[in-house]
């Protein structure tokens, strides 16, 4: 372990020792072990650590923006993303509404000296799409996942808006499409296919639908899965208020099927199972045709994420290899959009 991460482990130990453990306060000898960086860009960091208290080990995850980096004072890093304390508050609210999520253990405060972020439980399971889709031990899970995704999304969409923290994006459909246009303009109108898709979305704009909490990044890759199926929903940084159908279209995006184009839901399931699970919890589900609009929306959204990554790299905000490389995946969204818009329908 380097000196730097030794210091960090000490700061984390102090932060966790001082947090509210209810009626089982930690022993004096309790401390953080096994601290290691998992991934992330140059700014946003994800760490794995264990809280070892006597004979008990609590596996944890830290998500943080270190001090002195862009966004560390609390502002969001990705376009459309929320700050980490808000993210933690949304996850806590989701948990109290029956959504399977990690338990938030601690929200970092300035006096912890660790930047902005929060610590949550590290749940057991697999989030890597290729393993979930290929490994024989997840065969039963794959059968159930689409239905479970439907159930879970219905629970997320039923979270009372009044219970949510302030600061979540909440735009009408008109204003939201304006937002996408402004993004395309600010990135230099690089793609006529993206513009065509935005025009398509404008011309077919549905009547204002229901409003609810939208996860915003609900897809294979952000779902923790074990042999029985869905364990926890991860990565809440793009959550916002909007038309809940967005999430149902998003989870079916071709880019998140990882090559299994015959299994529209995340590469593991069928539309019918997703909608059946949704209906079982919410009492109603959209028609299949309604989802296609949101598949186009989400394919365009993926293109905008790629453009945002390029911009973060070019601006010097995040010079990581991953940012530069993801930026090159923009053409995936373009081919998916052309295929989707060509299908007969609305």
């Amino acid at each position, binding site marked *: 372990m380097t000196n730097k991460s030794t210091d960090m482990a000490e700061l984390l130990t102090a932060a966790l020792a001082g947090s509210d453990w209810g009626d089982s306060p930690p022993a004096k000898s309790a401390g953080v072990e096994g601290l290691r960086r998992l991934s992330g860009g140059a700014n946003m960091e994800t760490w794995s650590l264990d809280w070892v208290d006597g004979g008990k080990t609590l596996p944890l995850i830290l998500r943080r923006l270190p001090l002195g980096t862009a966004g560390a004072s609390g502002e969001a890093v990705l376009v459309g993303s929320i700050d980490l304390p808000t993210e933690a508050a949304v996850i806590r609210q989701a948990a109290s509404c029956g959504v399977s999520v990690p338990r938030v253990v601690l929200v970092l405060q300035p006096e912890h000296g660790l930047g902005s972020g929060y610590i949550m439980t590290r749940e057991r399971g697999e989030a890597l799409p290729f393993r979930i889709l290929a490994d024989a031990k997840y065969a039963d899970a794959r059968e159930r996942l689409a239905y479970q995704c439907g159930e879970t999304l219905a629970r997320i969409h039923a979270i009372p808006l009044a219970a949510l923290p302030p600061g979540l994006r909440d735009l009408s459909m008109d204003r939201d499409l304006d937002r996408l246009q402004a993004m395309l303009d600010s990135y*230099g109108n690089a793609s*006529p296919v993206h513009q065509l898709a935005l025009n398509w979305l404008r011309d077919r704009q549905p009547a204002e639908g229901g409003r609810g909490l939208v996860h915003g990044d609900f897809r294979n890759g952000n779902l923790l899965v074990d042999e029985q199926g869905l364990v926890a929903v991860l990565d809440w940084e793009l959550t916002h208020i909007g038309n809940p159908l967005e999430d149902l279209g998003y989870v079916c995006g071709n880019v998140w099927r990882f090559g299994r*184009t015959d299994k529209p839901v995340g590469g593991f399931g069928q539309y019918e199972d997703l909608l059946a699970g949704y209906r079982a919890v919410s009492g109603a589900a959209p028609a299949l045709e309604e989802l296609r609009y949101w598949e186009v929306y989400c394919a365009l959204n993926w293109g905008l994420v790629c453009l945002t990554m390029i911009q973060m790299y070019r601006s010097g905000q995040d010079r990581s290899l991953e940012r530069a490389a993801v930026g*090159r*995946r923009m053409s995936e969204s373009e*081919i998916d959009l052309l*295929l989707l818009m060509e299908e007969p329908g609305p």
Partner: protein
Amino acid sequence: MSETEAGELLEATRAFLRDEVLPQLEGFSAYNTRVAANNLAIVARELQLKPELDRLDLVIAGELGIDPAKGPVAQQLARRLRDRELALDDRLLEYLKHRTLKLLEIDNPRYSGYLQACERWRPEPGVE
């Protein structure tokens, strides 16, 4: 004998990363090295295919009275579409399909959407 060509340098570097560096790494470093090797493959394909992409742009520019000296053709098309000065017709759709296929051939020819499009639009990406 000529000097080492750009594509050969890229291929040699990619093989080095993949065959010699990668086996010694694990975790995040291994992942990033795989990404790095793939980036070099993208650049190699772009060196080879960019002239075809540029030719597609020049042809549509000529047909639609776009001056390539005023900025990237794709950007000018996107702005005309935004301002509704240009409507989608069969010819424009054909160009967009050709262009996007060429981009995928460079960026990620294994992408499922590319394979689907090749299948659906074969032999020529005309209009259904």
